[in-house]
């Protein structure tokens, strides 16, 4: 029963081309370990350096978005401050393309602004994304945004197809946000 149950989950992941998945609390330490595993796997498959770095770059930006902006967090400070943010990351293959999906909860009040940003990015072609990146590089970060707005632009820039996103309303307060990027 136990093995059957988990074999079914495993089969479902395999059928979707998923080679790598993590769901739970994410931190910078987990980002680092998962990132290393991802790079090792791709290098073993003799993926060329620039492609590995492109996938890795999207992975890092997606993970850091969850760590910074997930609406489900545990904060604590022992010797070193810890920030655990709930979310999921899935990496797989569709045909000859790598895809990365990230999911996390966001506050409903943040949805319109995020949607507006993503729609804007989706509407830009490669050259326009490049120009937008250059503009944002010179801007100071938005209020409430740690790091930079350019994380999403970096993701769109490395993607080989327009980014895909979706929101699923969970309750009065929160929605589940998903971002899928093909590289």
């Amino acid at each position, binding site marked *: 029963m136990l093995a059957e149950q988990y074999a079914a989950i495993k089969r479902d992941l395999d059928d979707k081309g998923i080679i790598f998945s993590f769901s739970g609390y994410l931190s910078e330490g987990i980002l680092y370990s998962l990132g290393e595993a991802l790079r090792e796997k791709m290098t073993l498959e003799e993926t060329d350096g620039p492609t590995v770095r492109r996938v890795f770059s999207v992975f890092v930006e997606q993970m850091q978005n969850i760590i910074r902006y997930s609406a489900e967090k545990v904060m604590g400070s022992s010797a070193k401050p810890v920030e655990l943010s709930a979310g999921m990351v899935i990496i797989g293959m569709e045909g000859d393309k790598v895809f990365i999906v990230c999911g996390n909860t966001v506050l409903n009040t943040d949805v319109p602004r995020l949607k507006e940003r993503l729609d804007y990015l989706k509407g830009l072609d490669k050259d326009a994304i490049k120009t937008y990146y250059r503009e944002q590089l010179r801007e100071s970060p938005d209020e409430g945004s740690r790091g930079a707005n350019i994380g999403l632009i970096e993701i769109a820039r*490395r993607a080989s197809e327009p980014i895909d996103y979706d929101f699923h309303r969970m309750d009065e307060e929160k929605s589940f946000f998903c971002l899928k990027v093909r590289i």
Partner: protein
Amino acid sequence: MEPLKIPATGRTPEVDFDFAAGTLRLSGESYPDDVATFFGPVFAALRAFLAEPSDAPVRFDMELLYFNSSSAKALMNIFQMLETAAREGRPIAVTWCYEENDESMQELGEDFAEDLHHVSFTLKQVPADGAP
């Protein structure tokens, strides 16, 4: 001025600033968990160095393989400091190295170069060493 040397870690670059010789170098990868903590001392040392009146040429070698978007902001900050000093007459030459076939890093170099008018900026292709 004392040199600034910080060895590379898994996610922060090697910093090798030999201020007396005027040769500065950043190499490796940069995606620190806290950008401000890592780059704070780098900015401070560079700012102090560029504030000293001097006509001695400065060479900055950027040999980064990968950096995340928050590090890009930090690099922009470094380039702005260099550009300001160059505008005031300091001869500053930046070499941006990227591995062959790495169009992303080549383009990122071009992104930064766009804002540099007084710094002499060179894009340099280097052979891939096989390590991603």
